[in-house]
């Protein structure tokens, strides 16, 4: 009888294990995760006329503007046999995915304090659902890229450099790593902003700055030659090169357009960085979720 009465289902206590992750519980709430995804996707463009068309408009127009400004006016070369528009579209599609994941998860606690203050469910469901919804959005935008890709590669001679090959199989891995980085960083930021709001100001303009340091609208090779010429300080060259987002975007352009900096050692580097970021984010997030409602 005594042993039976000690058989508690769970305990609510202030003690925290270092990595207190209850995967069983998260699995139990998987329906909730999908319902949140559904909510995010379905309600995004409700009562708009263009509806899901907005998914296409945003990356297309940004690419057109980038092509005009950076390639036509500033004369940045994207390499022979690569249409600048396609080059930019590739970078922007991937960058948008990362940005949406980061921005979407970085205010998890503040945006949801109403729900979080009333009911318990594993809080990590929220940022995961944001990343999954963005994955769907990314899928749609990737479709745009694929359409233009097919058009340029098979129906014109402008994209002579691009040659689709088996390397395309790396795509899911790249998408996964990008999501992991966005999620990890987002969780770290959202945890820290619960008590000190400073970081939330950093996010909005920090993301903008980060885009310029992520080789979205220029090839990494260009930076390397500029550094070699001495027209760009070495430190910024290093920053751009070892920025994991640069690596992923370059890798994506490598497997689709055949230009870019891609090697296995860099892939391993990105895998390690994103896993570390994700784990650190998860630990901080878990620590915060227990008491954030008192400080937010």
């Amino acid at each position, binding site marked *: 009888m005594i042993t*039976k*009465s000690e*058989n*508690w*289902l*769970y*305990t*609510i*206590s*202030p*003690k925290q294990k270092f990595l207190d992750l209850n995967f069983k519980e998260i699995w*139990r*709430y998987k*329906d*909730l995760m999908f*319902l*949140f995804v*559904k*909510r995010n996707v*379905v*309600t995004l463009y*409700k*009562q708009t006329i263009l509806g899901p068309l907005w998914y296409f408009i945003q990356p297309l127009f940004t690419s057109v503007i980038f092509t005009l400004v950076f390639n036509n006016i500033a004369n940045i070369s994207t390499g022979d046999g690569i249409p600048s528009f396609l080059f930019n579209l590739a970078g922007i599609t991937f960058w948008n995915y990362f940005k949406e994941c980061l921005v979407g998860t970085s205010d998890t606690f503040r945006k949801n304090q*109403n*729900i*979080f*203050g*009333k*009911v*318990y*469910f594993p809080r990590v469901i929220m940022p995961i659902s944001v990343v999954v919804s963005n994955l769907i959005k990314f899928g749609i935008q990737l479709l745009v890229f694929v359409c233009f890709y097919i058009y340029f590669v098979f129906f014109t001679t402008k994209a002579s450099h691009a040659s689709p090959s088996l390397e395309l199989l790396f795509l899911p891995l790249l998408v996964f790593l990008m999501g992991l980085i966005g999620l990890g960083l987002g969780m770290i930021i959202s945890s820290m902003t619960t*008590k*000190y709001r400073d970081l939330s100001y950093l996010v909005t303009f920090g993301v903008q700055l980060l885009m310029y340091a992520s080789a979205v609208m220029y090839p990494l090779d260009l930076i390397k030659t500029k550094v070699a010429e001495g027209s760009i300080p070495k430190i910024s060259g290093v920053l751009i090169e070892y920025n994991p987002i640069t690596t992923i975007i370059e890798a994506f352009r490598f497997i689709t357009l055949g230009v870019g900096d891609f090697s296995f050692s860099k892939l391993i580097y990105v895998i390690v960085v994103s896993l570390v970021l994700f784990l650190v984010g998860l630990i901080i997030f878990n620590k915060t979720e*227990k*008491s954030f*409602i*008192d*400080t937010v």
Partner: protein
Amino acid sequence: MSDIILKAENISKQYRLGLVSSSTLSHDLIRWWHKVSGKDDPFLKIGETNDRSTVGNSDYVWALQDINFEVKRGEVLGIIGKNGAGKSTLLKILSRVTSPTTGEIKTKGRIASLLEVGTGFHPEMTGRENIYLNGAILGMTKKEIQQREDEIISFSGCQRYIDTPVKRYSSGMRVRLAFAVAAHLEPDILVIDEVLAVGDAEFQKKAIGKMQDISRGEGRTVLFVSHNMAAVKSLCTRVIVLKNGKNAFEGTVGEGIEYYLNEEKSRSLVYINNSKSINKPFVKSVKVITSESNGIHQFNEDLKIEIEVFSAGLLEQPAVSYQILNRDNLPLIHELILNSEQEFAQSKGIYKLISTIKNIKLYQGDYKLNVFFADNFTKININRLTEICSFEIINTSKRPYYWDSDTAVYKEDDTIWKVLKLNDFR
């Protein structure tokens, strides 16, 4: 002995007062340093008891302190206490929204908490979509919701609008739908906040009835937090009373409610102004003399009100009046004394005015006083005291009322009933 499903051991919760500022950061750093060097958290020692109305010295207060209780399977435990006694904090800890500073709660069942209905409703989604989302937030799986979908929709009474976005709903319909989802949860332990019973009178009755079904008929373990003593009386099997974050009483429902009501009354029966001013007139004290102790007055007994006023000198036409207010702050009785009736405040000094209401026939419930001290000649309002000296009217001596206190406010004494038998049917 039936088995214990939930056990709280030494639950305490500390809050920091004031704003989050740079001193928060420095405290965090000190705390972190103590943790790294293996010492106890220094700020855990300095907290003060949580009494809202007194100004303390410490930046830290204990919202809850050493709460211990056990809940048996199938029991309905009421948690009562004044505002700020720690009820909501305890609920938040039980529902895992926040964690305790010390102590732990062990449970053998899954806890679902209803601190608010309609959490996570999205206005752009339809009623049906929201049933699924809200149900999942409350811990149901998709399958469970599917099984109960029809039941939920019919309980809510919103069949016609179920595929319309919730933003088009009236607020009442939204509450109905939300409560319907919540009422069909089936956890082992249900934590309910009384504020749940919202909406129109009809729906409130339905909601309370459903809560009764849940706790009584289905034999669920329920923790029920409320200010509504009638609801506690009808639902609970045992209560605990919280006072300033401490467990002040634990026992049967009747004793607990009595304890709580006495606790509530003891402080506010007398109004005293200790001002030493000798230049301006003011109301020095107001006292309600009730038939029982602790501000409880028996129906149909004499109620005495003593008002002491200080006068700095001659007042032309002093007037003192008071009103008795019901709990909705509606004045029911107005009494006035003028200098022309009985001379007072004609020279410097303290005057005591005693008013007696013979055989007062107020309905059961809580009452308060408004007291006014004015000069009718200059039309200057000297002193205006509102909502002081609360007391309670009870009726145990005579027959029960047989009507709700809201249907009439005062019973007059001089009506006479006569009963005649007119015919014998044989």
